[in-house]
């Protein structure tokens, strides 16, 4: 196999970073329009992962992640999935639920899309004769989380973690204590090195997972769990060391660090934490 980004992919990465930096100060709506115009929403899995990594790096405020990965089914074919999120609840008076091809479910882990046929939906009579509604009995529904959604979160998480590390590196190179830059102390260096290795590990697994989706490789289910779990493990380490090495400054609202820490943490919490996906790997 070849595991190096080709020139086009590297170029895409640079373009995305530059574009995002350029539109960052504009209103979210305009940013969104730019992304749509550039066709990012239609990018194949590996390219999508690269875009999402950059958006994660920039703490992007647009609905790109969910649209491109969780709701991708609405614009095309529902990707075969492997991860599961249990939807426990009953949907009452859900419009068109019994005849929809796909249904978006709001679960305690986030919004996911399932095939209509996977729901036990029963049409209910309503007063408006033209309105078609159904109750959805989805008590034990194990809704399929698309692999793409897991990769999307993993890539976003990797981007956010990288940003945290870059901010920390800038800080420890500049901040002087005991007459030396903090970054010259080994206790600091070793934490930075561990963050770097964790990020590289998660990024490799994310790219691998995206590749398995692109090529519909039989390893895709395992790879998606690995990517999501590795991103979660990476996030944990980066959050702890990243905040710690920033000192009190990292504890403030004003500092940019908070956005990236939180984006990374959110990516771990959504659609199953590292521990959930590690267990899924063992199943």
């Amino acid at each position, binding site marked *: 196999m070849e595991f190096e980004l080709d020139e086009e992919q590297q170029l895409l990465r640079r373009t995305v970073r530059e574009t995002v930096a350029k539109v960052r100060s504009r209103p979210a709506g305009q940013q969104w329009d730019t992304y749509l115009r550039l066709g990012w929403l239609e990018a194949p899995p590996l390219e999508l992962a690269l875009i999402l990594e950059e958006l994660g790096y920039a703490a992007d405020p647009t609905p790109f992640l969910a649209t491109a990965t969780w709701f991708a089914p609405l614009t095309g074919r529902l990707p075969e999935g492997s991860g599961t999120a249990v939807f426990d609840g009953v949907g009452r008076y859900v419009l068109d639920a019994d005849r929809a091809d796909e249904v978006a479910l709001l679960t305690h882990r986030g919004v996911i899309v399932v095939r209509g046929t996977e729901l036990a939906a029963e049409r209910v009579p309503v007063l408006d004769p033209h309105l078609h509604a159904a109750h959805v009995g989805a008590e034990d529904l194990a809704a399929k989380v698309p692999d793409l959604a897991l990769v999307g979160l993993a890539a976003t998480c990797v981007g956010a973690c990288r940003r945290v590390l870059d901010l920390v590196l800038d800080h420890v190179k500049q901040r002087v204590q005991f007459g030396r830059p903090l970054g010259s102390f080994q206790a600091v260096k070793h934490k930075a090195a561990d963050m770097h290795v964790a990020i590289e590990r998660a990024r490799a697994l994310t790219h691998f997972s995206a590749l398995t989706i692109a090529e519909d490789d039989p390893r895709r289910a395992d790879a998606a769990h*690995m990517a999501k779990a590795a991103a979660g493990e990476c996030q944990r380490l980066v959050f702890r060391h990243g905040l710690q090495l920033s000192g009190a400054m990292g504890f403030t609202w004003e500092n940019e660090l908070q956005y990236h820490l939180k984006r990374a943490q959110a990516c771990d919490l959504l659609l199953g934490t590292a521990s959930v996906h*590690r267990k899924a790997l063992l199943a």
Partner: protein
Amino acid sequence: MKLADDPEVEEFRAQFAAFLDAHLPEEAEARERAGSSAHVPAWARRWQRTLFDACWLLPGQPPEYGGRNAGLPQQLAHLEELARRRIYHSFNPQGLGIIAASLLTFGTEEQKRRWAVPILRAEITAALGMSEPEAGSDLASLRTRAVADRDGFVVNGQKIWTSGAHDADVLLTFVRTDPEAPKHRGISALLIPTGAEGVVRRPFGSIAAEDDLDFNEVFLTDVRVPRGNLIGNVGEGWRVANGSLGHERTLLWLSYAERLEDLLRDAADAGAGQEWYATLRMDLTALRLLGYRQLGLDRDPAEISVLKLLGSEAVQSASLHALEAHGAEGLEHPKRTGPYHHMHHEHFISSWFERYARSFAGTIAGGTSEIQRNIIAERILGLPR
């Protein structure tokens, strides 16, 4: 980026696989164990020679040195096929991978003929004398002195941890030739025959067993070394040392990946169901992916530190977790012989305790984990020294 295998590499792999199927030593003859990395049983010498003659020993080298000028992906496939059959190409891996390889890079034609080829043909074995009692991680502070005289050098000093020196015929030794020059500059590389007058070797046991002899102290007292044994120029030792280790390091990650794979397979057989198992499977996959990436474009050599750190520490946690999972049973320590016994057909059968203890070889030898972290922080992340 693509998952598909490169057809050229696969063709190469298939050729080597066919060769192995036809020539692999019989299990019965391969029973005899190596006493150390340089104590080579007769069958293993024959085996290495067979590989050399067929140009399958070091595929990256030209045919006269047992290879076929193959690229890195092919070299990787070669090692993978050997590992799949749980056999190694040589019981003198440092002799082959470091010493012969450095002679081929830095040596004269005469030196290649005199030492590199015999090492490759398993006629002699070689050991690596870098570390000293006062020069471990800070290798450049080595003190062993070599004073030039009319036709060569007179060497005085002490080496330690010299793996396999007690059975080796020759030592690649790093010595200080110029005490006035800055630390890294005054070092030279000398080949010292172990039979030379004034060379005394004292093997001692490893953590695994008192008679698990691989480590050596080597005392050098007024050892006369001819000028023809100098590798590269006087004062170029540091460059030779880095080049020597560089040869080994490129594909070093593969040995961690293989060890980790063995550990995970054996742990699964033993019924490990814990979450650590999943994390270590992720480590293994990531290690292989990052290893393949390393084979891609020209990358910063410092990235090898990422692979070494990730790989050696994953092996260490895998063995610790597996040991813990076995509880009191993990205390058992059936006696085996020699550190290289896993380089045989037979399953790697050391006790879990021994596997954990031995995992520290990876996090200490060849630059400790702490040193790898320093390299990553300074060379990749740009933090100040």
